[in-house]
């Protein structure tokens, strides 16, 4: 407001300059002020997870200031990390995510290469189809998929429902289309001369892919890997539908179904579990933020 009045009262050029820089300073101050507000809004839940995870059950049920820990204790962490059940959830999650990431990369990188470089009959349609599949949400497919796997079990005698490895078949439907899509974008941005040169030299398509495309598009590959990992780690609906026995659960479902017993919420342990469950994606994000963001923005800006 005050800058406005200065702006009007100063007819000379010099004063105008002054007001512009003062405008900038004020804009900067307001930016910091609002950014701080939004950062508080963003970080309140994770901060509160941390606070609660350090509290004992007596302190949680006492009516003290919830935003502060008076007697910090690690008992929640000790209890969870020594509980076989929780470690089982963690391993299930880790195995599922690692295998799904590997399978996703093995399927989507060659496919993206073929779609980006080897124009063949229907390749453009297929690329569009891949993108459309990415838009089909999990909440549309979980019921038919559940029934499909149940029928498959009845027909063949191979029981997949309520086994953690059923998720290995299902998660790729979430990860492969997006990873293929962003890899098509990265591959398409590699200059044609590079692979033409390789083919003239007698390199096979496979060699062109492994020796040229994968090294050059490595940032894209890392971004796609991160995406596949975070999606499989965070997936909640499919494991909730497909797995019920406690030894087959993955982390998000495990925490919710075993730590909430009826109406009894063991909040200290729930928050500790949630924090430990959020840790792997957060750690990856902390170290590979630029790749993470590249993958996030690539989906819409590439292709």
């Amino acid at each position, binding site marked *: 407001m005050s800058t406005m009045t200065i702006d009007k009262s100063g007819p000379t050029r010099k004063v105008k300059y002054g007001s512009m820089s003062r405008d900038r300073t004020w804009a*900067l101050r307001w930016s910091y002020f609002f950014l701080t507000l939004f950062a508080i809004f963003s970080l309140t839940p994770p901060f509160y997870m941390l606070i609660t995870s350090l509290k004992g059950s007596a302190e949680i049920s006492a009516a003290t200031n919830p*935003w502060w820990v008076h007697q910090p204790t690690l008992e929640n962490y000790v209890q969870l990390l020594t509980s076989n059940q929780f470690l089982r959830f963690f391993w299930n999650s880790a195995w599922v995510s690692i295998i799904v990431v590997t399978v996703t990369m093995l399927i989507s990188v060659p496919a993206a290469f073929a779609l980006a470089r080897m124009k063949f009959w229907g390749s453009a349609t297929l690329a569009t189809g891949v993108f*459309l599949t990415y838009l089909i949400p999990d909440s549309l497919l979980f019921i*038919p998929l559940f029934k499909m796997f149940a029928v498959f079990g009845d027909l063949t005698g191979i029981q997949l429902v309520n086994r953690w490895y059923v998720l290995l078949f299902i998660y790729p439907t979430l990860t492969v*289309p997006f990873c293929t899509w962003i890899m098509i974008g990265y591959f398409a941005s590699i200059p044609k001369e590079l692979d033409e040169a390789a083919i003239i030299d*007698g390199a096979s398509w496979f060699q062109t892919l492994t020796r040229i495309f994968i090294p050059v598009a490595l940032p894209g590959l890392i971004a796609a890997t991160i995406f596949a990992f975070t999606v499989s780690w965070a997936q*909640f609906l499919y494991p909730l539908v497909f797995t019920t026995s406690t030894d087959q659960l993955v982390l998000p479902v495990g925490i919710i179904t075993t730590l909430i017993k009826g109406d009894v919420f063991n909040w200290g342990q729930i928050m500790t579990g*949630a924090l430990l469950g959020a840790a792997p994606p957060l750690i990856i994000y902390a170290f590979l933020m630029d790749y993470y963001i590249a993958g996030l923005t690539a989906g819409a800006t590439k292709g």
Partner: protein
Amino acid sequence: MVDVAFQSNRTAAAQAGRRRVGLRNALRRKSMSAFLMTLPLILLIAILVIYPALYSVHLATLNKAMTKFVGFGNFEFLFKRDTFWLVVKQSCIFAISAVIFKALIGFIVAHFVHNVPANKQRKWRGMLLVPWVIPPAMSTLAWLWLFDPSYSAFNYTLSFFGIGPIPWTGDAMWARFSVILVNVWYGAPFFMIMYLAALKSVPEQLYEAAAIDGANWWQRIWYVTLPMMRNIIAITTLFSLIVTFANFDIVRILTAGGPLDHTHIFATWAFRVGIEGSDIPLGASVSLFMVPILAVAAIFILRDITKRGNES
């Protein structure tokens, strides 16, 4: 890369005829190897995406025991139920208001981050993206605890201002507000990142030209920023509309559809009737109602992408 360049020079010196044979062989092998390379992808999409999608249409026409064909019986049954119309209404309220607030907050925050000196942007961006990184099932648990009826940390804080206690998940209106709030918290950082990337691609000269013409901040946004970002805004909003409309985790964990079905959306209600109520055909019919809206959004996204593909 150096290696390749070197080898291509060597080949250039070799006979032209041999080169042509090599190319022809490569072309002959091309379609076969391309097919083999895309085969796993095609199989995956055909068996685990397209087939289930069609199968769910088939399922929706069966009776509860899945022994008899009932045609549109499940849909007729749904149309007569008040809960169904409640779910339709809530899904639309939830998706539309959440997307609008996510887009608005994302747009505003992106501007603030863009205003800050470049060397500090990384730090702020890093902090503001945290909600998007945490698995939504995990962060919703934290919100559930923040909203806890007896130990709510929010109500504790608000009581100092003489407000409350607010029944965050107990009252229908507040529960709707809460699920939207959590969704906005989770999704706004995505918009922020997309808009920030778009803001950085707007040429600085345009703002200088606008400033010389005497444009105020509002005119700069309206006539320079928004037209330049139109594509990104459209595509991000449509993406988010699909994801939000199909959302499951947040509503399921925060309210499980309660109180009295007043926060159910399509995905959670389909889960409730289809999996928990073991009426798979009815659940399939419920989730099929998401298709029209998803299809419309998908068509618009696709149009935008092919348009940009043609331009480039």
